[in-house]
């Protein structure tokens, strides 16, 4: 499948191929532009946020499901990392696996009751579960340290003798995981699971009637998404080291949703670009929390109403790379109807109405 992805990138029309390569290369080149530790630390957070955005994108983009419980799932991953290192002195990689597994399990446990509902009820239920998880982190004091949180400083992560002992190195590790999230999204999009999810997103009743096992499909997607959220949380702990439950507010999810919309919901690179943009924006503009919230709200309105394709579509249009749809031109019949003529009947339009028993 990885080959298929590479092949798809190479097969793409030239401007899009260039666009894809640029999208993938920009974050890799980012450290060259970051001269201070502060901005390097922000970039690390950007990469982790990108992975979290990809986690959410599995259910949000493909399945059309907005889960607010992901704030809690990200917390589960972070605390799993902190606790396994603290109590079992577990190395990064097995701890990451455990965080992913626990994220997936908790996601399934949340998904089972939540997928019995839809729309606003699903949103409310996942919000309740997200709050419950945060509450658990806050109140299970003997395990999590309660509101005081946990500070766990592990050894710098290493792989095959290479130690990620600087912010730049840590950034590349986190970026690799963000690309893993991107790859995961690509694979989901190309798989039967992705097609089923898209069918559910477009019309769940129709999908079910067509034989799509909707509940199982959504649950599988939620488990994958939960695993990625768990990994994102665990990586956040590796970087942040000090955890408090307030870091895992369900409303955090809304800013990540904004990142996805900002980057472009339909684009594979949207979450990546959106996450970096949203992480750097308050930093570069020096926005206060209140200003940030105001700016997020304004951006959400602008992008939903004016630029629904996000930064990438807006950028490619500006660069003249995007597909341009021909201007809307109504048919002569439609123009006549608009002018007040009676709508032609089905028979007038050539439809043959057959009555009688089914042969």
């Amino acid at each position, binding site marked *: 499948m990885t080959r298929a992805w590479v092949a798809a990138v190479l097969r793409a029309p030239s401007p899009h191929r260039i666009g894809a390569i640029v999208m993938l290369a920009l974050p890799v080149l980012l450290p060259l532009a970051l001269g*201070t*530790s502060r901005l390097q630390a*922000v970039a690390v957070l950007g990469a982790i946020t990108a992975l979290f955005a990809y986690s959410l994108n599995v259910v949000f983009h493909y399945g059309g499901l907005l889960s607010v419980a992901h704030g809690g799932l990200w917390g589960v991953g972070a605390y799993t990392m902190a606790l396994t290192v603290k109590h079992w002195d577990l190395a990064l990689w097995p701890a990451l696996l455990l965080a992913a597994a626990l994220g997936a399990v908790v996601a399934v446990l949340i998904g089972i009751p939540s997928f019995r509902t839809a729309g606003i009820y699903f949103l409310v239920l996942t919000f309740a579960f997200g709050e419950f998880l945060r509450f658990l982190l806050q109140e299970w004091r003997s395990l999590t340290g309660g509101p005081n949180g946990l*500070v766990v*400083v592990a050894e710098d992560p290493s792989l095959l003798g290479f130690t990620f002992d600087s912010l730049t190195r840590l950034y590349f590790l986190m970026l690799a995981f963000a690309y893993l999230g991107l790859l995961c999204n690509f694979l989901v999009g190309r798989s039967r699971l992705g097609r089923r999810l898209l069918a559910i997103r477009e019309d769940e009743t129709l999908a079910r009637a067509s034989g799509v096992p909707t509940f199982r499909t959504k649950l599988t997607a939620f488990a994958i998404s939960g695993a990625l959220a768990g990994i994102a949380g665990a990586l956040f702990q590796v*970087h942040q080291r000090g955890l*408090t439950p*307030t*870091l895992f507010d369900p409303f955090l999810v809304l800013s990540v949703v904004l990142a996805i919309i900002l980057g472009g919901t339909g684009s594979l690179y949207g979450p990546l670009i959106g996450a970096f*943009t949203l992480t750097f924006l308050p930093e570069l503009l020096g926005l206060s929390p209140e200003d940030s919230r105001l700016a997020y709200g304004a951006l959400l309105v602008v992008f939903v109403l004016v630029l629904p394709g996000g930064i990438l579509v807006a950028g490619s249009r500006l660069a003249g790379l995007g597909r341009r749809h021909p201007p809307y031109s109504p048919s002569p019949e439609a123009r006549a109807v608009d002018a007040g003529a009676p709508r032609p009947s089905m028979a007038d339009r050539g439809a043959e109405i057959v009555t009688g028993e089914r042969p």
Partner: protein
Amino acid sequence: LLALLAVACGSGTTEPDSGDAGGDTEAADPATSDAAATEGSEGDTEEAEEFAGQIKIGANLELTGPIQPLAQAGLDGVELAVAEINEAGGVDIGGEAYEFVTVVRDDQADAARSATNAQELVRDEGVKVIIGPLGTAGNQAQLPITSAEGVMTFSNDPTLDKPLSDDEADPLYEYAFKTQELARRLFENYFANLDQVYPEAKTLAVLASDDASGQGVATLIDSLLAEGDGLELLATETFPIDAADMTPFLTRIRESEADIVYQCCAVAQNVAIGQQLVELDAAPAYWAAGLTGATYTGVVEALGSDPEQIFVGALSGPDVGMDVGDERREELAQKITEVLGREPTSQAFVSAHTYQIMYLLAEAMEMAGTFEDTDAIIESLIGLERDDIYGTAFYTPQHFLAHPSEMLRIEDGEVTRAVIPALPVE
């Protein structure tokens, strides 16, 4: 993103500076202090020419958010002391005068931002001392970064209490200092204070915010009173720190019929909560963390009349914001206004702590003959006494500041004060 990259390139031109005479630090010029506090702006100082170099002091404080008044007060104390020390010739290190400069960053009460600020202060600015963050989440996020680099930190984080009082301190806390007393010692003093200013109080109800500070204090009070302090704890209510309406919590507290309500730690809401307590007649007396004369005045203004309730302020420093006839307190308030060009905040007693700490630090650096070797500075700092605005204070080997505590009782605008000297250090 390209545009962002370009901006990032621009901001990335500030080269990391770990030396003692970095050019891109803030001036201690009072005229620039406001901008510095909010934006962390930087500029050269003309006075730098008179000094052999600069000693950067980092401030990573919650200058926006729920504990802004505390953080701003902390910054006021730092900047006032810095201005005075520089005016008096700076810090004498090995016979040469060095200028203090503050590098201020606002963590916006956000733990992730606190860590980012710490990365910048430690690695880009090369500071060896950071004042703040005062709250738990920010401090916990900062400590792994500062302790690894041997950077001294000063915070009011209540979770510091345990490691600082342990026999075998965690290396994470080796360079961590508290800006005031251990909470347990402080509350032991407070209960003694309370017995002096409000002896009729026999029962207590606690109204605690749901953050680390509020919950930590609620747990501490519970355990202290369980040991038989004399007061009986009747109820504990937890409220979301950003909640504006305390009606459900105060109503339940009213049902407990406690003699006094203790609120912690939504200091920015002291006036609003005090007003609601009076309106609901939730208890005969209101005691709050950081409750000062300014709180009382605010409630009176909001109500349009004096409340019947007694207001009790538990302070680990002086109530700078209120005219109580103490010359030193009035002097500090006046200096903040004159030198920094801004009014003291409602929590200006915190200014007294950070003001005193900066003087202690300057003296410790002079004694150690260094501003970079924090181990040597700590060795000089421990036990160094300074008699200042609220009496004699000193850092103990456990890294907390031993100092007197005091309590105000405000009734019909009349103030009664009880001051208890620092508890002996074991």
